[in-house]
């Protein structure tokens, strides 16, 4: 969340019909981009709690600056640019940051992301199809693990595996899913 700067509403919000139109358009654009923003932010924060926080900041920033958005440009690119700077700002402000991501690596990841031309809905859809193909037990492990944001200790008890065995299991499932998705997209 971007604390204490700017106003929530746009200058264009002088009357309710305009405000409503802006809000509708904003919601439409953001709705289309949300699934791209989240993984992008996640890739450069490396932590889901941070991702939620930064993504919320990005939404607010986008909304605050929506009156400056040029419809001739890609909303996704604009959103990613804002997300990139929000992550950098956030890293300066907050305590937590993954040791494996420094500013240089983040910058390189950002460039690579652009090269990937926003791996979008195809991957999302392919992953969902691949999930369907998993053994029910494996699907349950994936569901539980990501519902609890990776609390291996709790889940390992539930499924009767050691934490390390569960970790290995999850790794194998993810590798299987990754391969499945790549084959579908090939």
């Amino acid at each position, binding site marked *: 969340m971007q604390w204490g700067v700017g106003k929530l509403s746009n200058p264009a919000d002088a009357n309710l019909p305009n405000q409503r139109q802006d809000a509708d358009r904003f919601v439409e654009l953001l709705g289309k981009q949300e699934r791209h923003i989240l993984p992008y932010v996640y890739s450069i924060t490396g932590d889901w709690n941070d991702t939620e926080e930064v993504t919320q900041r990005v939404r607010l920033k986008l909304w605050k600056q929506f009156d400056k958005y040029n419809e001739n440009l890609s909303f996704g690119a604009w959103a990613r640019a804002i997300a990139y700077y929000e992550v950098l700002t956030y890293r300066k402000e907050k305590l937590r940051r993954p040791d494996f991501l420094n500013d240089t690596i983040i910058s390189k990841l950002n460039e690579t992301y652009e090269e990937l031309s926003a791996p979008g809905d195809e991957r999302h859809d392919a992953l969902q199809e691949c999930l369907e193909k998993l053994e029910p037990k494996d699907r349950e492990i994936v569901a539980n693990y990501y519902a609890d944001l990776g609390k291996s200790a709790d889940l390992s008890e*539930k499924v009767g595996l050691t934490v390390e065995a569960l970790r290995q299991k999850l790794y194998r499932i993810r590798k299987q899913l990754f391969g499945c998705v790549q084959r579908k997209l090939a």
Partner: protein
Amino acid sequence: MTEPIYNNEELVAEVLRLTLRCQESNPIEDDCARLSVLLAENPQARRIYLLSCKDTATLINCNSALAPEPAPSLTRFIKSSTNTIIVLALAACVVVAAGWTLFWSDWQQQDDSPVIAELEQAELVGRIVSLANVQWAEDATEFREWSRFAVGEAIRIEAGVVELMLENSTEIVLEGPADFQLMSPDKAMLNHGKLVARCGPEAVGFEVDSPDVKIVDQGTEFGVSVKQGMHTDVVVYDGKVDLSSRAGVTPLERRLTAGEALHVPRQGNSVRITEIRGDQYLTPQYPLDRGIGRSELILSVGDNLHSSETAKYYRVIGRGFREDCPAYVDRSYQWNGVDEAGIPPGLLGGDYVMTFNDDKIRKVEIELELAKPATLYVLFDDRIPTPEWLKKDFVNTGWDIGMDEVNIDREVKILSGVGPARSIDRVFSVWRQDISIASTITLGTIRQQQLEVNPHGVLESMYGVVVTDLIDPQLEAIY
């Protein structure tokens, strides 16, 4: 999406394995170092990493797609249900191609309801920008994310966290159970519960009332905790507030600044709050502090100062000692490694106490109650002669740690360097004492006489305190 990199099974396996490991709560350092090298040097590794992150986000969202904010009865049902529901949700995710799009369009449909249409006639003052695990109180108005919030409306929750942003740039986070009402564009009432507010320059003068106190923002971040019929606690994290109260024995009128906190009881006089913990008060970093706020090692922190001398508090942060972590409650200074090697490994991830730097002018003794055997570190400013108590009870480890003295005010922000060896202004030595049993340790003063000067003019800094699990002597070689 058919680049040859994806045929490199070994690299895929390696990056995926390392990524999963490093995104766990307690990653192995060697794994993360390896991932770091791969990401820095190998474009293919970066692509694989980004794709695996996208997959992870999809998998998490599939689960959170259980219900963005369904009716309360359904919320309760889902929360109390078993794994089956989660698996069903995952299956649902397969069917529902765009959860967020549906959420937004659902919201838009809701917006067309007569209730919302009526609210649109009301003055727009803010929006609910985030809801997390919210359980609404009985008969309470239930809001959705991004819904409008107007004067006269109330947020009444039994549990969860609500974030609200007002047009005057005030941002408020509420944690349930709580009862909050917006009385006017510039005034709110917290009947009970906890909130943290951050007010921008446009919100100076914004007022938060409780049954016990009136708090007027003067450009700040502050927390309020109200226990109905009992007391109100006010904690200032940044800037200043004007606090007044007709409750208690003596009417209260005072200004609180960063690092100060007061407990105002319904009856009796207000007293200083000595210690702030993440689980007792909402902090500006919330919800980030959820993961790092609780200390298992430090039971309490106190000192020999009376409420009449100061209203400053100590803040205990569990597992929070790392690069760029804040050092004091009343300054924007940060701890950092003095060179590229970073913070000494023995300190990393330790529980620590944010002391207050104004302490340095007083003859203060800090009492630290430890819950179990621990290794206690004191980080001591090299500009100050080493006091006898430190020489007597502690051993100089030979480690150094840096202080990045960031100066921030509301108009001009002088940013700190990020990470080790950047913008280091002062060097502190790290002293160590092993405490073999749970006990209370007294840390002495840095000077023998109290100074009657403005502490900001004293070119010395108060010591820091870090506590870690007692180091096994057999493992000491690691350090």
